[in-house]
C-alpha cells in the first residue's frame, strides 16, 4: 500500500513536470485568454430601467435593453425628412454628412465667433474601448445614437448624456483589419437604427428599446472583409460598402431592405470577365483587384443618383501584375439606387501604386462657372488634388492641389488624368519622399465640411510623405496582399529629409480651387470638420484638443484639451434653444505612428458634449 502510494506520488510528480514542460514550451496562442476589448458572447439581454443601474449592468451581458418611454415624440424618420436640407433645422443631426449633400454645415447661428466663449462642457460619455473613436453621432428626437470602436452602439439622452440602451457587438478574434477597429457612425430611418460591423455584418435595432430587429451577414469577414462606415439610407434601402483593399478582395457595395435585412443588390467595383473595364486589368489580376468601397456615399434625390467612391487596386504598391488603368478602382461611381447599375464613373488615379484610395469625403455643391451654376461633386482626394466633377454626367471640371507637398504627379491633363512623376513610382530601393504618403492628403476615415455661404470647403490635411517600397506578393485569401509598404520617414530623426510631419485645416474655395486660409497644427489633422452658419469650423487635433476656428480667417477662437488624440467627426444640434457641439477623442496608435504623429498619448475613447445656454 505504501509502495503504491509512493508510486502514485512519483507518477503525479512526473505528470506535473511534464505539464510544466509542455506548458512552458507551448506556443502562446494555446494559453488563450479573451481580449479585453472583445466582449464575451452572451445569449442574454438585460432590461435597463434607468435608476436600477447596479442591477442591470452585468459584466457578461453585451446588450442592455430600454423599456422606458424616451424621446420628444417626433415620430418616425421619413424619406422626406432625410431629403430635407440641413439648413431647414438645426435641431437634429440625421445623417453622417448632416444631410444628403454631405456638407456637414449646421444652420445653428448661435454657434458663432461672438458666442464661442460661452461654449462650455455639458456632459461626457466613455467608449470603454481602445482604438480610434471615429464616430459622427446622429441626433434625433432628443436622442443621440453613438457608435464606438469595436462596434458598441449606444443611445443617450442628447441633453444630459444619460444612457438609454447599449449593444456591444461580439467580435471574432481574427478580424481582418488593416487600420484599426473603427466605426464611423450609425444611421436612422423610421424607428430603426442601423450599424455595420467589423466582421462585415449589418444590423438593425429598434431606436427606442435597442432590441435587435435583424442581423445580416454582408460577406464572410475572414476572406479579408470588414465594414467601418455608417450605412447610407436611400428610400427603403440601407447602402453599405466593404473594406479589404489590403487583402486583395473584390470590392463591392450592397443595398439591404431596411425592413427585412435582405440584400436587394450588390455592385462590384471590379468588373468580371467580359464586363466593361475588364480590359483594364492584365491577366487575371481583376480577380484580386481590391477597389473597396469602405466609406459612405451621398445621394442626389433630384437626379436620383447615388455617388459612391472606391479604393486602391490590389496589391497596393506593386502594379506589375495588374497593368492597365484598373477600373473602377480609385473612382467615383454614379449609381441608380433602384437597380445598383452604374450610370457614369470618373477615375481619379488610374493604375494607382501609392494606395491613394478615392474614398475621401464627397460634397455636393453648386459651382459657379462662367455665370452658370453647375451641380457638382467636390472632393479633396487622397492623392492631394481637390476635384470638381459634374454630378449629372461625370464630366471633369477641375483639379488643383490642396496640399503644400504633392510630388507624385507633375500636373493634370485637361481631361482630368494626372501626369505621373516617373521618379515617384515605388521601387525596391526607394529614396524619394513621395507626397502625399499612403494615408493621403485627406483620408477617407474623416469627414470634411462645406459652408455654401462662404463658398469654402474645410479640409483636414495630413502633410506626411513616405518612401514607397515595392516587393513581391502572392494572393492567399484572407491574407494581406500589398505588394510592398510605405515607410514613414517624416518626423523620424536622421531619416531622409528629416522633415517633420504636420497638418492643417485648409479652406478651399470650391469654385476656383484656391486656398483661402490654412490653420497649421503640429500633427497631421485626422479628425473631421463641422461648419456652422454662425461662421465657425470645429475640428480636433491628434495632440488631443478640440478646436473652434473662425470660418473666414482660420483663426483659433476656441480650444479645449480633451486628452486623447481626436479622430472623430464633430456634430452640432439644438434643443430647447440651446446649442450643442459633440466631439469624441480617442486615437489609434498604429495609424498615428503611420502618419508621423506623436504616439505618447494613451488610447481610450471619451465623448465630450459642449453647450451654449440660450
Amino acid at each position, binding site marked *: 500500500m505504501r509502495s503504491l502510494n509512493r508510486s502514485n506520488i*512519483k507518477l503525479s510528480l512526473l505528470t506535473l513536470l511534464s505539464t510544466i514542460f509542455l506548458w512552458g514550451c507551448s*506556443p502562446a*496562442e494555446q494559453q488563450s485568454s479573451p481580449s479585453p476589448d472583445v466582449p464575451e458572447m452572451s445569449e442574454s439581454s438585460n432590461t435597463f430601467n434607468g435608476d436600477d443601474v447596479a442591477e442591470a449592468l452585468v459584466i457578461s451581458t453585451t446588450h442592455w435593453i430600454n423599456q422606458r418611454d424616451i424621446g420628444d415624440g417626433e415620430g418616425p424618420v421619413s424619406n422626406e425628412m432625410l431629403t430635407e436640407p440641413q439648413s431647414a433645422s438645426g435641431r437634429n443631426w440625421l445623417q453622417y454628412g448632416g444631410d444628403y449633400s454631405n456638407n456637414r454645415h449646421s444652420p445653428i447661428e448661435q454657434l458663432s465667433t461672438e458666442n464661442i466663449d460661452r461654449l462650455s462642457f455639458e456632459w461626457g460619455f466613455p467608449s470603454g474601448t481602445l482604438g480610434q473613436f471615429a464616430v459622427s453621432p446622429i441626433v434625433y428626437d432628443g436622442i443621440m445614437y453613438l457608435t464606438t470602436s469595436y462596434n458598441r452602439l449606444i443611445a443617450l439622452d442628447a441633453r444630459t448624456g444619460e444612457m438609454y440602451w447599449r449593444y456591444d457587438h461580439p467580435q471574432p478574434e481574427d478580424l481582418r*483589419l488593416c487600420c484599426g477597429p473603427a466605426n464611423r457612425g450609425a444611421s436612422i430611418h423610421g424607428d430603426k437604427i442601423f450599424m455595420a460591423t467589423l466582421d462585415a455584418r449589418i444590423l438593425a435595432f429598434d431606436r427606442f428599446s435597442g432590441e435587435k430587429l435583424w442581423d445580416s451577414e454582408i460577406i464572410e469577414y475572414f476572406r479579408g472583409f470588414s465594414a467601418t462606415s455608417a450605412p447610407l439610407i436611400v428610400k427603403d434601402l440601407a447602402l453599405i460598402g466593404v473594406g479589404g483593399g*489590403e487583402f486583395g478582395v473584390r470590392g463591392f457595395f450592397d443595398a439591404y431592405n431596411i425592413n427585412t435585412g435582405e440584400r436587394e443588390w450588390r455592385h462590384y467595383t471590379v468588373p468580371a470577365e467580359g464586363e466593361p473595364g475588364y480590359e483594364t486589368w492584365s491577366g487575371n489580376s481583376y480577380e484580386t483587384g481590391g477597389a473597396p468601397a469602405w466609406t459612405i456615399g451621398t445621394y442626389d434625390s433630384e437626379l436620383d443618383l447615388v455617388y459612391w467612391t472606391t479604393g486602391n487596386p490590389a496589391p497596393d504598391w506593386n502594379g506589375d501584375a495588374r497593368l492597365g488603368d484598373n477600373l473602377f478602382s480609385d473612382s467615383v461611381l454614379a449609381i441608380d439606387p433602384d437597380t445598383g447599375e452604374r450610370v457614369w464613373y470618373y477615375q481619379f488615379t488610374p493604375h494607382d501604386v501609392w494606395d491613394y484610395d478615392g474614398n475621401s469625403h464627397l460634397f455636393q455643391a453648386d459651382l459657379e462657372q462662367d455665370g452658370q451654376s453647375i451641380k457638382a461633386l467636390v472632393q479633396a482626394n487622397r492623392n492631394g488634388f481637390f476635384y470638381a466633377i459634374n454630378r449629372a454626367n461625370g464630366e471633369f471640371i477641375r483639379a488643383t492641389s490642396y496640399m503644400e507637398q504633392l510630388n507624385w504627379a507633375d500636373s493634370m491633363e485637361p481631361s482630368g488624368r494626372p501626369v505621373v512623376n516617373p521618379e515617384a513610382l515605388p521601387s525596391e530601393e526607394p529614396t524619394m519622399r513621395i507626397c502625399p504618403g499612403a494615408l493621403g492628403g485627406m483620408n477617407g476615415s474623416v469627414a470634411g465640411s462645406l459652408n455654401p455661404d462662404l463658398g469654402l470647403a474645410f479640409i483636414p490635411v495630413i502633410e506626411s510623405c513616405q518612401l514607397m517600397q515595392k516587393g513581391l506578393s502572392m494572393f*492567399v485569401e484572407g491574407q*494581406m496582399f500589398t505588394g510592398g509598404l510605405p515607410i514613414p520617414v517624416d518626423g523620424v530623426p536622421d531619416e531622409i529629409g528629416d522633415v517633420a510631419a504636420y497638418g492643417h485645416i485648409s479652406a478651399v474655395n470650391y469654385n476656383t480651387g484656391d486656398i483661402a486660409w490654412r490653420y497649421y497644427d503640429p500633427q497631421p489633422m485626422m479628425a473631421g470638420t463641422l461648419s456652422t452658419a454662425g461662421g465657425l469650423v470645429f475640428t480636433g487635433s491628434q495632440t488631443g484638443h478640440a478646436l473652434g476656428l473662425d470660418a473666414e480667417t482660420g483663426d483659433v477662437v476656441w480650444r479645449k484639451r480633451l486628452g486623447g488624440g481626436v479622430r472623430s467627426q464633430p456634430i452640432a444640434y439644438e434643443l430647447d434653444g440651446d446649442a450643442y457641439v459633440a466631439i469624441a477623442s480617442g486615437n489609434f496608435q498604429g495609424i498615428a505612428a503611420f502618419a508621423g504623429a506623436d504616439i505618447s498619448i494613451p488610447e481610450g475613447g471619451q465623448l465630450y458634449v459642449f453647450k451654449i445656454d440660450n
Partner: protein
Amino acid sequence: MRMVKPTALICLIPIILVSCGPGTEPPSQADDYLADAAAVQRGRSIFVGTCAGYCHRLTPEVIDAVYLFDCEWKHGGSDQEIFNTVTNGVPNTRMIGFGTNFPEGEDDLWKVIAFLKSNRAKCS
C-alpha cells in the same frame, strides 16, 4: 506495478531544461541560402511585398503584429518553427497560413527565413 526510480526523475529535469533552453538549432535550408546574395534578396523582396505592408514592419513600430528582427518569438524562433508558422498560420489571428502558395514553393519561404536571419539582432 513497476516503480519509477528516483534517478529517472533526476535525469528528466536536465532534459526538460535543455528542451526549453535556446539549444543548438539544427541547420536548415535557410542556412544554405545565407551566403547566396540573390537568394537573400529574393527573400527580402517577398517579405517586403507580402509581410511588411501593415503587419511585420521593417523597423519596430506601434502595431499589433510582431516585429520579426528581434529576439522574441511568440511561436518559436527556430528556422523550422518559423517555416511551420508561416505555412500553417496562427489560429484565431489574422495570420493565415501561406501553405504552398509561394511562387517557387518551399524554396521561397526558406529564402524569406534566410533574409530574416541575415537581419536579425544578435541574441544572447
